[in-house]
């Protein structure tokens, strides 16, 4: 009831009004989950947008305060559920920074490879979903076919298609299974040609272009003030990518281009993602080429389970460590840290305050979708009609689970 009072519908004393308050969502296919919008409409023209979020709020940050450091990994999976390895990586980096450790090189390559694969998977969805929101169903069916291949790879590596929870503090859970790299290379070879297919399928489509070109333009200045990050920011001409400007893991070993476009309209945001998939593919190939055999988890019995499982049968000490680790978790020294990674949606940050116990004192998640979604509230001349709002939501690519935390 409180919502209705916020926008006053009556223009004069008679209570007659030209403007109508319309509700969009939360259960609407083009709101990408459970986003609810209140639109003040004058005919087909949108006067004001008021997003109502929180329908998927699970209190992730509160839960984090009550979980041990390792137990939080599955929670991070459920932030951006299209790109779980990225979220895992961001969180693992924060805890590792607090502990002052670094994962072995092979683990870093595996993590980055997984993160880039998941970036392709996330971008694939929006490559198809934005045209679908605008009425072109076909693309989504094809992109989902390719996403399926990535899901299969994820299942092969971690055992789970979506919520992988594959990262651990100090490395990854297990080494890559046999034949996995060949499978990924096979995917790369197939997928390489398909990106061009998607571009020609919708990228040159007259109707699609009419719906997205010059719609929802955001200038670079506005984009920074709104705190946009990731493809949404780069589409507005701001050349900033954390992978290049503050490289974490082994990104400084990889050769890739940062995709920057200038117009900042819905098309540019879409195109930016399509081009980023090519770069990600390049990075996956480089990771595979550069990866060397070696340890995949840090050798520290206080932090990680022993890699050699036979040890548990012979060594009492290993047994005790294993028990303590499983029952209580590990202690993290007092301190605070903020780490940011370039997640597919933008800057994903974890701010962790540790009080020296097994559970974090405070975890603040800087969710990129949450920040990016706020761009919807901005008044813009290029987002005039209801149909443009739909294009705008799609091009901002919010994942509601991440928005609502």
């Amino acid at each position, binding site marked *: 009831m409180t919502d209705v009072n916020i926008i006053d519908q009556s223009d004069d004393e008679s209570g007659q009004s030209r403007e109508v308050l319309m509700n969009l969502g939360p259960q609407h296919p083009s709101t990408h989950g459970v986003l609810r919008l209140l639109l003040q409409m004058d005919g087909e023209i949108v006067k004001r947008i008021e997003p109502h979020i929180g329908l998927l709020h699970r209190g992730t940050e509160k839960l984090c305060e009550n979980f041990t450091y390792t137990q939080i990994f599955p929670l991070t999976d459920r932030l951006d559920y299209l790109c779980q390895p990225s979220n895992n990586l961001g969180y693992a980096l924060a805890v590792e920074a607090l502990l002052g450790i670094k994962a072995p090189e092979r683990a870093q390559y595996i993590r980055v490879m997984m993160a880039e694969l998941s970036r392709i998977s996330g971008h694939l969805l929006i490559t198809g979903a934005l045209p679908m929101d605008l009425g072109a169903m076909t693309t989504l069916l094809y992109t989902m076919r390719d996403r399926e291949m990535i899901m299969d790879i994820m299942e092969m590596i971690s055992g789970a298609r979506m919520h992988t929870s594959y990262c651990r503090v100090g490395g990854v859970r297990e080494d890559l299974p046999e034949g996995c790299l060949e499978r990924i290379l096979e995917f790369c070879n197939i997928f390489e040609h398909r990106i061009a297919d998607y571009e020609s399928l919708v990228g040159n489509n007259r109707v699609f272009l009419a719906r997205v070109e010059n719609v929802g333009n955001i200038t670079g200045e506005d984009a920074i*003030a709104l705190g946009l990050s990731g493809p949404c920011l780069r589409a507005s001409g701001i050349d900033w990518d954390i992978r290049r400007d503050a490289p974490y893991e082994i990104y400084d070993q990889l050769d890739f281009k940062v995709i920057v476009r200038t117009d900042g309209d819905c098309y540019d945001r879409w195109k930016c993602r399509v081009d980023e998939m090519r770069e990600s593919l390049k990075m996956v190939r480089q990771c595979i080429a550069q990866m060397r055999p070696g340890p995949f988890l840090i050798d520290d019995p206080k932090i990680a389970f022993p890699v050699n499982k036979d040890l548990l049968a012979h060594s009492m000490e290993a047994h005790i460590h294993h028990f303590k680790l499983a029952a209580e978790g590990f202690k993290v020294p007092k301190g605070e840290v903020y780490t940011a990674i370039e997640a597919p949606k933008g800057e994903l940050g974890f701010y962790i305050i540790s009080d020296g116990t097994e559970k974090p004192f405070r975890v603040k998640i800087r969710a990129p979708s949450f920040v990016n979604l706020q761009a919807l509230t901005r008044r813009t001349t290029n987002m005039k009609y209801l149909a443009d709002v739909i294009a705008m939501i799609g091009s901002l690519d919010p994942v509601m689970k991440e928005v609502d935390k």
Partner: protein
Amino acid sequence: MADQFPVAKIIANFNGRVSIDSEVTDMACVVVKPIDLVELCLFLRDNPAFKFNFMTDIGGVDFFPNLPRFQLVYHLYSIDFGWRLRIKCPLEDPPKAPTITEIWTTANWHEREAYDMYGIVFEDHPDLRRIYMWQDFEGWPMRRDFPLRGYKDKYNPFGEEKPGADQDPIGDIL
């Protein structure tokens, strides 16, 4: 990158009103009183020597039962220089802080979140409502004295007993 960042310049400019938090090691960190917050933010954004144009994140922290109980933590980023800066702003109970929505539009939802979760009131905020919880919700869920499972009521029989509430919840459940 953070090590080249001239924190001393900020301290000098603010003349004792801003201090360095030396316990923080991952990036430069300054502590400021709420009354000087807006001035500091404007200075950091507009001074060509810093250009902290990107407001990354605002988070509330509750140090219950320690005092001062609340704290706001701001993370800034300078896209031009690649510097990060953390601003801490300790708050008394009941917590009140000035809004910085005029400086960075993005602060709007971040501040609403901090209000929703910790009950930190941002003065002059254009639209200070709950963002995640529903508007009629009572209490501040992220405060440390708020139980993990919430308070017991008709729809939440496994929640904790509300202190000082009527000790006859059975009638409520049935």
